[in-house]
């Protein structure tokens, strides 16, 4: 069906212009071009190459694909790299195969039985017989990244006593049971269970490492052991913490929502209700992770925000759109400012949106049903306010409410006590402020002030 080696010692090259004209070509391409009725300086008469060149020219992207060509005696399958340079497309053919139509005969191959078949919910990494990392669960890739794949385990991890290399252990067929390893990059320690994987004839095929502790626990242990304080006032969660936690949470949320919405068929009503509870809890945890991630970021001394023009009316419109369903669920009316009122402030768009979303979300959460949450813009003060008709905030609590984890005695409502702390920090990072006062007729009025873009 195919030739033994399709790889060419030297690439065959050709250059095509914006209109598909063949500007220059090695002999093999010229033969195809003229063989298909092409003319000197005319459009390249090899449809597959023309199509690839046209795609590359139109998008400006680099492509590496197979191209099928009908030749006189055989079909050809070429491996072609295409790259646009200035106004020309350079095509490099690095593989050249003649294809016939006869199918290959079947020769079923037996796969050896493996020593391990049991599954576990703990994150797992597999090494092959020479100690290369072959596969890792997504949660581990979130921590160690895919860069570790197909590279020696010993390059990334060491045993804590640093006296033996795990690849050496595998080669010697002397695999330990439970052991501690250390990730060299992050210096995090992990308890792992090492299982040897063997074939029927007792030949060592590789190893399975079950991670018994995750990075979060390991980080905690390190903080407890560490004699010196962290170098910055952040939580020190590690840059991979949110990624590592979000992935399993995302899986919980997606599965719970799939079960709860009965997408795969009807289930008992109480099970659907349990699934919705799980989804709700996972959503709450995901929000908490986002808050903690923000907290970690904004408490660092090098935290910076962008300065760009932000229009408060636009922010109000977006927030109202995003939270309309939530407000309707709570039977709360959302009142937005007159679209004619424009107020341009300086700040980072997504951070301003985050603050106002937090304020309106809180107002909806803590206001009585049937009440109104109003967003007001004051261009003279370059501010946007969120006014609710709830119980209000007592004067003595108006500063305390912006402190970390402060809930003013509330619990069980899904809040983390971090939203307002983060919002004020963000507001101040944008050279503005976030304050709370009493609204006319009761309730609370949270006001975000930012520098005006007109100054």
């Amino acid at each position: 069906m195919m030739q033994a080696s399709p790889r060419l010692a030297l690439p065959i090259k050709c250059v095509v212009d914006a209109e598909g004209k063949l500007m220059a070509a090695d002999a093999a391409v010229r033969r195809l071009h003229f063989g298909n009725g092409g003319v000197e300086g005319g459009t390249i008469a090899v449809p597959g190459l023309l199509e690839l060149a046209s795609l590359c020219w139109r998008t400006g992207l680099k492509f590496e694909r197979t191209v099928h060509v009908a030749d006189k005696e055989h079909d050809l399958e070429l491996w072609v790299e295409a790259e646009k340079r200035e106004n020309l497309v350079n095509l490099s053919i690095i593989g050249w195969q003649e294809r016939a139509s006869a199918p290959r005969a079947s020769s079923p191959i037996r796969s050896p039985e493996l020593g391990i078949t049991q599954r576990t919910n703990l994150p797992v990494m597999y090494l092959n017989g020479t100690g290369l990392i072959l596969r890792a669960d997504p949660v581990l890739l979130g921590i160690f990244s895919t860069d570790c794949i197909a590279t020696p385990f010993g390059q990334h991890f060491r045993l804590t006593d640093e006296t033996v290399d795990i690849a050496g252990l595998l080669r010697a067929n002397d695999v330990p049971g439970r052991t501690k390893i250390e990730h060299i990059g992050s210096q995090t320690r992990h308890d792992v269970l090492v299982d040897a994987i063997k074939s029927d004839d007792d030949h060592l095929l590789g190893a399975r490492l079950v991670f018994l502790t995750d990075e979060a626990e390991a980080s905690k242990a390190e903080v407890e052991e560490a004699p010196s304080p962290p170098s910055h006032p952040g939580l020190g969660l590690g840059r991979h913490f949110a990624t590592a936690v979000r992935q399993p949470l995302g899986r919980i949320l997606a599965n719970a929502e799939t079960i709860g919405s009965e997408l795969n068929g009807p289930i008992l009503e109480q099970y659907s209700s349990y699934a919705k509870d799980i989804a709700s809890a996972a959503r709450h945890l995901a929000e908490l992770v986002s808050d903690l991630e923000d907290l970690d970021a904004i408490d660092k001394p090098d935290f910076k925000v962008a300065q760009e023009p932000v229009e408060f009316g636009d922010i109000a419109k977006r927030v109202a759109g995003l939270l309309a369903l939530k407000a309707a669920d709570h039977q709360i009316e959302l009142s937005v400012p007159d679209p004619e009122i424009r107020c341009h402030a300086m700040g980072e768009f997504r951070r301003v949106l985050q603050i106002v979303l937090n304020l309106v979300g809180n107002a909806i959460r803590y206001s009585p049903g049937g009440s109104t949450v109003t967003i007001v813009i004051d261009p003279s003060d370059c501010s946007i306010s969120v006014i609710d008709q709830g119980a209000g905030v007592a004067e003595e609590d108006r500063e305390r409410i912006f402190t970390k984890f402060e809930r003013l005695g509330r619990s069980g409502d899904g809040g983390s006590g971090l939203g307002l702390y983060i919002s004020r920090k963000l507001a101040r990072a944008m050279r503005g402020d976030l304050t709370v006062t009493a609204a006319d007729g009761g309730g609370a009025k949270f006001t975000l002030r930012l520098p005006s873009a007109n100054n």
Partner: protein
Amino acid sequence: MLDAATASANDAQMLCEDIAQQLFPRAQRAPSEAILASTRLILQNLVQAIEAKLGISSDVATPLSWDMLSRSGLLREAALLEFALARMAEHHISQRLETGGAAFLTQLPNRLLESDDPLVAECGRKLLIAQNAAQIRSPESFLRQLPADVLHLLVWRVVAVFQMDGSRSAGNLIASGNQLLATHDEAAALHATAAKLVYFLPEEERGSLLNPKDCGLALYASGLAHDYRLPHDRILRFIDEQDVAPLLLMLRGRGHEAQAALAIVQHLRGRRSDDHLLPDLLVQYEALDPEAARSEVFGWRLAAAPVWKAG
């Protein structure tokens, strides 16, 4: 008033198209709620990942440009929907194969890491990396799997939505879009690494491509794609289809005997509700001329060619 009237007028035409689609569906099977929900989720993941790369953050699950993209029909690209359906199929098959333990330790990609040919060893390494990355199933991961031309199309549509919206600097959006495209490496996607490895695989290893137990799903699908010149994603869908006939025809075209074909079918598809039909199908399978099966499958290439609705 002007906006509302125009929106309503446009809606009149859209309504015709929506009704036509529901009254006169062209596929024999109606898509299930689960398929629709999963397709929407994957497309939302893609748009969300692109928005994040464009520097547009959203605190809600639905991307900010989703509403306009979906209403304007900009997401109705066959290539995009095929991508989403194939990722679902890939996930289903992989989950079934995962229950087989650590079979990949003896499979082809692992063996190729020690190939004497540096190109083949490098392809094997890249395939393993792509396989691991693909199992993450995050917005970012879906984005990495997109063919460059599909990404190109999608990126500029998302950019266009925010440009029309007028809330962001057009220059910044275009710069971020170009940056995203410049850093996208189509050759690192799972289907691309598998296709390259299949193409450059040494002759003595090609037999492994005939058995998914020996080469793993990605190379098996790429091997079939290579043999029949069909897209890798279409092969994945054929494998996961409720109807086993397309897969059986591809196996017959490769010359597998009935029992060998049955073993492959059961390995890839697991137990199915219509397994009781398999004995009858296998009788028909044996009666089928491999050459006829092969030429039939070759005819599917035209139907599998990507069709772009626009730009």
